[in-house]
Each structure stands twice: as C-alpha cells, then as structure tokens.
C-alpha cells in the first residue's frame, strides 16, 4: 500500500518536473541572456558564448554615471518610473478599497451596476483605448504631464482591483460589521478599525499589482509623455533602439536594473500575491 503510494508520488513529481523544467528554462534563458549582455564588453556582446571572456561591470558604471547619450537622464527617468508607479499604486488602492467597502459592506444602491461596468471595461483591450485616451488627455491639457499617465494607469488598473477587493471583502463575515455597529462604530470607524486591518493581504496584493502594472507600462507612457526628462525608464529603454548601432550592452544593463525592483517587490510579497489575488476566485 505504502509502496504504491510512493510510486504514485514519484510519478506525480516526475510529471510536475516534466512541465516545470521547460517552463523554468523558458523563463530564465532570456534573463540569462540579458545578464550576459550586461556584463560583456561592447565588442564581445554578440559573440554567442555562454560566459563572456572578460566579464565586466563597466556597463553598470556607465549607466549609473550617465556616460552615454541615451542615459543623460537615467536617474531622473528611474525616479519618474518610481514616482508614477507608487502614485498609481496608492491611488488605485484608495479608489478600489473605498469602492469595495461601499459596495460589499455598506451595500450602497447601484453597487451591482458598478461591478458590471467595471467588468465591462475589460471587454475593450487597453491598446484600443490608447488613442481616445490621448485625445482626452489633450482635451484636459494634461499631455506631457505625468499626471496624464498616472490617471490613465489608475483607470486601467482600478476595475480589476475593485473586483478582487470586492470578492475578498464579501468573504468577511457580516456579523463582524454588525458587532462593530452595536459596539458603536460609525461606518468610517468600521472601515479603519475593522475592515482595513482584515483586508491587508488583499490590499498588499492589489497595491503591488497596480504598482507593477504602472512600472511595466510602455505604450501609454510612450504616447502621453514626450519630454526626455518626463518619460519613464521603459520609454527611455525603447529609445535605445532608435539608432542603427544600438549599445546593446548598455540597454541590457539598464534593463536589468529596471527589472530588479519588480522582482524584489514580487519576491517580498509573493505570500500575499497568490493568496490575495485568488481570494474569492473559487467558492470555498
């Protein structure tokens, strides 16, 4: 009996590895490639070796010290990316939390309609809306203003976040609200003292999601911002390719730096990400 169980376990493990190893390679090879470029000298970058002859950190030095035409505003652009991502994360979190609390806990009228409309926004791909969004921002005179990108990203991120938070807060027992009401809590106190502390895992997940969405955004950033000092690092990376002889090793070094924060954030909060984003996904 136990032997059969062990065999079954081994077979399951083998199947998982059979799927897991290709997926891992598929994910890691490009990153390794990027890393390889980043530590290679300019001439040997495309040599096709698995490890460079003379690995160097010089590329990073060039990036950090802005010693290249494309990197003139590196620190400013990194900061732009950071500021926009944090602003989008915070704003989305605020909007989605308030919406979820009002719809799920206070049961405001029209809540269902709001939820359906939120879902409806995802019928249209974000790329289709890029031009209308551009027009709208121009109407408001926000073009070339970082707030245009922040608002656009909040618009794109909010509906999903509202859904996730609404599902998660539906799972909190209603008796908690009733107990708090009887204890004398106003809706605002209920929100601060009972609701928010219990929603922390979902809030972290949703905040991280929207932050990373904004950090990774290229299309809208490219469209809405054009001044070199205002653009995000993702747009700046794109600009590397505008020349015939792009400095690949610098592009990859910058890319590696750009990829580090999301990886770190995801790694820190991974416990919340899985639990938080799937909360309410299935009936438990």
């Amino acid at each position, binding site marked *: 009996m136990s032997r059969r169980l062990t065999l079954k376990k081994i077979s399951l493990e083998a199947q998982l590895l059979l799927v897991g190893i290709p997926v891992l390679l598929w994910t890691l090879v490009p990153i390794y490639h990027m890393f390889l470029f980043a530590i290679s000298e300019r001439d040997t970058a495309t040599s096709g070796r698995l490890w460079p002859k003379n690995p160097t950190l010089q590329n990073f030095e060039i990036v950090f010290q802005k010693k290249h035409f494309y990197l003139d505003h590196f620190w400013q652009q990194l900061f732009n990316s950071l500021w926009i991502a944090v602003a989008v994360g915070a704003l989305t979190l605020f909007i989605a939390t308030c919406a979820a609390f009002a719809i799920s806990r206070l049961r405001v009228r029209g809540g269902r309609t709001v939820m359906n409309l939120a879902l409806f926004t995802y019928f249209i791909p974000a790329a289709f809306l890029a031009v209308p969004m551009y027009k709208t921002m121009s109407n408001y005179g926000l073009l070339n203003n970082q707030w245009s990108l922040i608002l656009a990203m909040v618009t794109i991120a909010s509906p999903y976040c509202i859904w996730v938070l609404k599902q998660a807060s539906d799972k909190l*027992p209603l*008796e908690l609200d*009733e107990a708090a009401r009887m204890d*004398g809590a106003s809706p605002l106190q209920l929100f601060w003292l009972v609701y928010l502390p219990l929603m922390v895992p979902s809030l972290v997940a949703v905040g991280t999601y929207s932050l990373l969405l904004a950090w990774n955004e290229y299309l809208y950033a490219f469209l809405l911002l054009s001044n070199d000092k205002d653009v995000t690092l993702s747009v700046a990376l794109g600009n590397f390719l505008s020349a015939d002889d792009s400095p690949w090793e610098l592009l990859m070094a910058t890319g590696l730096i750009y990829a580090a924060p999301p990886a770190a954030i995801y790694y820190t909060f991974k416990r919340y990400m899985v639990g938080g984003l799937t909360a309410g996904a299935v009936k438990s």
Partner: protein
Amino acid sequence: MATVSFRKIEKAYGPVKVIHGIGFDIADGEFVVLVGPSGCGKSTLLRMLAGLEEITAGEILIDDKVVNDLESKDRDIAMVFQSYALYPHMTVRDNMAFSLKLRKADARLTAERVDNAARILNLGPLLDRFPKELSGGQRQRVAMGRAIVRDPKVFLFDEPLSNLDAKLRVAMRAEIKALHQRLKTTTVYVTHDQIEAMTMADRIVVMHDGIIEQIGTPLELYDHPGNLFVAQFIGSPSMNVFDGVLQREGAGATSTTAVSALGSLWPVAGLAGGSHGQKVHYGIRPGDLTLADAGIAAEVVVVEPTGAETELLLQIGSGATAQQLILVMHGRTNAQPGDTVHLAIDGAKAHVFDGQGGQRL
C-alpha cells in the same frame, strides 16, 4: 437594567411577511428565551430589537422609550452572536475594550471593566491571545465578555451555543445562567433548542411561523401547553399524541371524561371544555405513562436503557392503524422487544386538544 416591550411588531421582506403582529413585555431583569423551529422569526425579532433589521410595523420600547428609529449603538444593548463575531486582528483584551474605546472612555476605567469581566468569565490568562488561539468555548466567553464590559441595559443572545459540542453546550448553559443571576441584566435569548429554553428561561416565548404560540414559565409550558404545537415542541422526548373522540358521561361533579382512541378508553381528568363526540388529539408525556399489571395493552418494540432511566418504544395495534408511543421510566425493566406490557395512565396528566385547531380544551 431595563424593560423591553414589543407592540404589534410586523416584519416583511418585500411581499413576504415573516412576523405577523407580535406583542409582549419583558420585565426588568428577566431572562426571556425566544424559541421555535428555524424560520419562525425568532432571530428576526431579536435583530429588530438589536437595531440590525428595519421594523416594518409596530413599536419596540426599551425602558418605555420607542427605539424604532434609534441606531443600534444608541440603544444601549449588547449582543452575543452565534459565530461569536470576534475581531480576528485584535487580542481578547482589545476585543473586549473595543466598544469603550469607540466611546472614548477613560483608559483606566476601560482596563478596570475589562479586568472585571475577565475575572467573572475566567478569561484572565487569555487576555493577550488572539481569537484564533482560543477554543470554541473560550471564544464564546470572550463574546460574552465583550457584552459584559459594555454594562448594557439588555443582553441579546442569538443562538450562542449552536457552534459548541454537546458537552460544552451544557457547561456554557449553566455559565450563562449563573452570569444572569449575578448581573441581573434583562436578557433576551434566541434558540431553537427547547432544552436550552427550558433550563435557562424565566419565561419562554414559543414562536411558530411568525406568531407567538404561547408565553409562559418553562413548567407552565410543560404542564399546560396551550396548543398542540407547544405540546409537541416542548419536552424531550416529545409528547405522545394521537387522534381520538371525546366521551363524556353524566354531568356536574359526577361526570366522567375519557377519550376513545386506539381501541381503548384513555382517561382524562379535570377537563372543562369539549363536548361529547368531539374529535380531539389526546396527548400524554412519555414520563407520565407507567407500566402496570393491567390496563391498556401495548407491544414493546425497542428498549433503550440509559442507566438512570429506560426509554421504551411501544406499539398499540398493528397494520395501518398502529400507533407508536414512547414511555420513559425511572430505573430498569425486564421487558424485552416483543413482550406485551400494560399501561396505567393518570387522567390528570393527560392533555386534550381540539381536533380542528389544536387548541387546548
């Protein structure tokens, strides 16, 4: 400490009416239990008193003041929920202090009240734990502590023992009763368990389908159920009831009354109402049936000894007209399944209900 009055309370969800004009008063310091099968409206009534449900029609008064339009928090009542509803992110101490904190009470007073409640409920060593680190019974006590700290006019309990195992339920029952005797706070307690109602209540309100079937002390309800529903709902095992015809002979003090049913005459004493030939339901509690050498014959189907008592499942007649009865006797018996026994019945212990409406005669 307060009185509570319900005046012609109605509740409807859209077109569906669930409570049909209920009215009764609760005296200061009284322990009243609302009991009834699920869906009878007892929890709804409690939640209306708590201010968690709108009142469709009628008035609820606490200390002679109408509270219909008062928010829950302004009614000065505390409620213990079936699911405990403890705040999972707060320690036991913070859970209990929460209401006082919201009221911006003095920190020293708060600590004093929490310590006091903790002492009453033996929660002292648990004050710094989180709810998830407590057992079911401990959580239940914390929920009670949270109510005690408030020192409210009225305690409300909504099926507080339903989530506990049988043994713990009995222990908590005694604890809640002792607590009431100590604090003497007016208490309204909802349960579907008639044993809980019988053991804890000063007065029981039996509800069914949104109306009150009967109000009375536990023994009043047990000894003089007002109708067939109460008769069968109160008492465990429940009352033996079967159909019969009222036989009345003679008049005045010399009259004799009995019910003919199952091929025998079942004695009745002290029956004022009812007329000869009327169709009735005859009821007799399992504990009021006794075995005798002669009397109504019945066949033993099952013998269930529990030590102190023995429960017999009996059958009278056979085929389609067979009627099963339960008999509970003190001590033990030699009766075996298949044996024939004879039943002696004290007519004074019989209950007779109208065959149509089920009202007590």
